[in-house]
């Protein structure tokens, strides 16, 4: 056996193990916490769970309507977790859908029909990323109140897409721009309208890029918690991140960790399902005529 190649493989393998641990460990750690009983959380081994239990997850849904428990002299709140879950689904699904529809339309206009100065339009949309979100919510709140939308879930359906749109328009329009014209023209020659050609020919072809845009939008939207907690005040209007931020950590640590997992796992599964498409789409978008 060749000594040098052997070393190489060892180093490569070692790097793979380190990489995987570095990426997965924090997630594993949070997952393990959520499976623990209160007893084990305090006295057990932090790295593993000996008696895994789903009671934290169950309690998330069952706390409502139950008699309030007293821990010491503090009242335990109950959380409308099921409502949070529904709100989160509506907001995430709706925002991704709005982002994709608005993004695809704009990208087709920019990349395919190429109005004068389309590069500058695209650059201008992308340049909105330099605006710091720091205290932008103060004036945004004024608009929201003027529109009578305060403490309304639908505000986020308007705000979230603007966080993901610039990047999505960028990759989608780059893709449309480099798609060979012949692809559509053959359909047009056969008498199809521009719209039919788009829906039947161009859209199916761009599936990977659409997946990439969708996953990027989902990842971006799911990472926000400031806006959600600023705009959604009453408990029955909150999404999971906003709701979790209001939890009493000292009392309900395990419950909150369960909530974290319950929100994260579906998002992660969706992302994992489309992970390969995501990479393929990014490649296709950045390479001309892919």
């Amino acid at each position, binding site marked *: 056996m060749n000594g040098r190649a052997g070393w190489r493989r060892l180093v490569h393998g070692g790097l793979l193990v380190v990489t995987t641990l570095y990426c997965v460990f924090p997630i594993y750690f949070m997952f393990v916490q959520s499976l623990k009983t209160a007893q084990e959380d305090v006295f057990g081994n932090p790295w593993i769970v000996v008696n895994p239990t789903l009671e934290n997850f169950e309690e998330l849904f069952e706390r409502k309507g139950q008699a309030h428990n007293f821990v010491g002299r503090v009242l335990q709140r109950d959380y409308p977790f099921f409502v949070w879950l529904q709100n989160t689904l509506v907001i995430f699904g709706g925002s991704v859908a709005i982002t994709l529809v608005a993004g695809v339309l704009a990208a087709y206009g920019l990349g395919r*029909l190429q109005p004068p100065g*389309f590069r500058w339009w695209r650059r201008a949309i992308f340049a909105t990323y330099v605006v710091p979100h720091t205290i932008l919510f103060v004036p945004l709140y004024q608009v929201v109140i003027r529109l009578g939308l305060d403490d309304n879930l639908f505000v986020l359906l308007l705000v979230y897409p603007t966080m993901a749109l610039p990047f999505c328009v960028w990759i989608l329009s780059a893709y449309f721009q480099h798609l060979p014209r012949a692809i559509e023209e053959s359909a047009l020659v056969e008498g199809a309208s521009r719209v039919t050609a788009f829906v039947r020919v161009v859209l199916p072809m761009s599936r990977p890029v659409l997946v990439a845009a969708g996953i990027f939008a989902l990842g971006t939207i799911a990472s926000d918690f400031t806006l959600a907690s600023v705009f959604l005040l009453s408990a029955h209007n909150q999404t999971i991140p906003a709701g979790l931020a209001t939890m009493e950590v000292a009392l309900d640590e395990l419950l909150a960790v369960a909530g974290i997992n319950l929100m994260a796992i579906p998002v992660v599964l969706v992302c994992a399902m489309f992970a390969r498409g995501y990479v393929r789409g990014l490649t296709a978008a950045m390479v001309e005529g892919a």
Partner: protein
Amino acid sequence: MSSRGREVWWAYGLMAPALVLMVGVMAYPVGWEAWVSLTDLSPLNDGPAKFVGLENYRRLAGDVQFWWAATVTVVFAVVTSAVKLAVGVGFAMLLARPFRGRALVFLAIFLPWAYPASVSVIGWYWTLNPPIPTAYSAFMSSMKASVDHALGGGAWAFLSVTLFNVWRGSSFIGVFLLAGINAIPPELFDCARLECSGWRRFWLVTVPLLRPFLALAVFLSLTTAFSDLANVWMLTAGRIVFPVIGTQAYWLAIKGGQFGPACALALVLVPFLLAALVVLFRSFDPPAEARA
């Protein structure tokens, strides 16, 4: 109307929903911020806000605290971006060639970004700064105490922000650069393999070919680092010892009620980010003729 003319109108029509959304949400807030940064607007003052010109900016320039926050912000952004980029490039190179189990390692690398930051940041905070006695809190508290002792109070919290930022960002950049590497024809690598080896190949072949991807990744990393108020806020539970510009502006506006200076503070970095963007556009959005 010529068919080209119709096409252009169609283009504007198709762009309309996205533009209305962007302008509708951003225009007023940005305009408000720019205008207020030139006034002394504050709920604490009587009467309407007075126009003060560039006074707020001038006062910032003479403020020691501002320069401290600016230094921390720039150092934070540059250091985390450099580390994220280095780790991300490492991830991408690791995944570049096929091996057994590659799909699993790829998924692992994808996870930190896919795991919603809105909730993982809470988990990180509790893990590193345990709020109540848990099995690991003794260990974490002693870590915290020794780091804070060595570097000053709040250093541990700041370190945890940095760690979180790098953990999540390197995942995004790694996957993004992998997409870039996939775009490079393998023959090119094979040719380069014959010509030169190791580091030279990396600098002479891989990096130039990945340039558009690297530029885009750097830009996204910089903007998130500069505006990552939420993470700093959450991970330090508002107890901020190392202020960044974002947290300082938030503090001034929400706790201090001084909207004028706070807006000036929030906008200070915009010209620099725009300049960075203009430079980077040359890499990831070259003019059509140059794309051959």
